[in-house]
């Protein structure tokens, strides 16, 4: 695996894999600003194999695997031949509708990948409801970084849900992308979002265990909608088995749009 030094290396490798591809397949949708962060922190690596581009992002103690291949058969051949699959802890995400994703799962299973978890995308359209101010909710502050990371790591699956690193949390706090709810001087809950133009995505919404059933989560999401009055499309990804969370999102107007994220793990990742 070769460390990536600049985003153009990624785009060049993707273009080479795409050139002349009859049925190009990929699970890599890079956004330049994110790529820069990964590269600056030495997290991104590539391996080019017979016209297929593999990318790996180091995430905590495992690798996130992305591929760009001319077709599924080429992908299947090259992933089976990649020796790292037997020595590294590897996770990969396949995004699409159920049938597209299942085709790719069938291609990756023989190489040693198995289903880890499934996320589903929920969408809410239309104007936001108005809400009254809640004095306990405001933007997270610089000093909250580690507490935010701790709450996210406690509440979510690090393999399945693409948890941010501390530096990403610090950037998000600086960019006013994390709402914090406080009780008794402690971080009781958070809502981490990304907004672009008329669309906004909730990345994480969590309440610390000892502060549940106090309407903390409700206060956070109502405040989130309140500050996004111009947004017309709200999205998020949720673990498909987390019925409690899905029920809450439905209550606030979200509904599945048919897009799923099937998270696969190799055999070294615990089930």
């Amino acid at each position: 695996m070769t460390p990536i030094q600049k985003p153009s290396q990624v785009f060049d490798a993707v273009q080479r894999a795409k050139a002349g591809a009859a049925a190009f397949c990929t699970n890599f949708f890079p956004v330049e600003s994110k790529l820069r962060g990964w590269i600056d922190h030495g997290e991104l690596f590539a391996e080019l194999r017979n016209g297929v581009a593999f990318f790996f992002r180091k995430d905590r103690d495992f690798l996130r695997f992305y591929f760009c291949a001319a077709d599924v058969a080429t992908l299947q051949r090259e992933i089976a031949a990649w020796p790292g699959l037997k020595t590294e802890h590897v996770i990969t995400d396949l995004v699409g509708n159920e049938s597209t994703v299942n085709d790719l799962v069938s291609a990756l299973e023989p190489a040693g990948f198995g289903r880890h978890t499934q996320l589903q995308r929920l969408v809410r359209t239309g104007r936001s409801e108005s809400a009254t101010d809640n004095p306990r909710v405001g933007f997270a502050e610089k000093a909250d970084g580690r507490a935010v990371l701790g709450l996210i790591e406690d509440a979510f699956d690090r393999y399945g849900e693409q948890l941010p690193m501390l530096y990403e949390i610090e950037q998000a706090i600086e960019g006013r992308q994390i709402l914090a709810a406080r009780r008794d001087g402690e971080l009781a809950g958070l809502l981490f979002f990304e907004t672009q133009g008329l669309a906004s995505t909730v990345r994480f919404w969590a309440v610390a265990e000892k502060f549940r059933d106090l309407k903390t989560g409700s206060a956070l999401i109502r405040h989130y909608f309140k500050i996004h009055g111009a947004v017309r499309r709200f999205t998020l990804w949720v673990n498909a088995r987390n019925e409690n969370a899905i029920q809450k999102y439905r209550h606030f107007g979200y509904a599945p749009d048919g897009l799923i994220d099937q998270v696969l793990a190799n055999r070294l990742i615990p089930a």
Partner: protein
Amino acid sequence: MKTVIEILTEIRPEFDFTASRDFIADGMLDSFDLVTLVAALDKNWGISIQGTDIVPENFQNLQTIEGLLRKSGAKP
């Protein structure tokens, strides 16, 4: 045959595509929408947009999409 605007509105009915100069910067189309849009454009005009042309710059607004269609052999 549908127009580009009709196709865009079918994919994202909540947005007014005539009011934007940059669909990507305005958050009206994400990377997953581009896949759906390319399939719809291919079907509507009987063309096959090249993989190397599926980049955000080609989907910024109506003019760039129509330019892509012309490049791919369609007459929008």
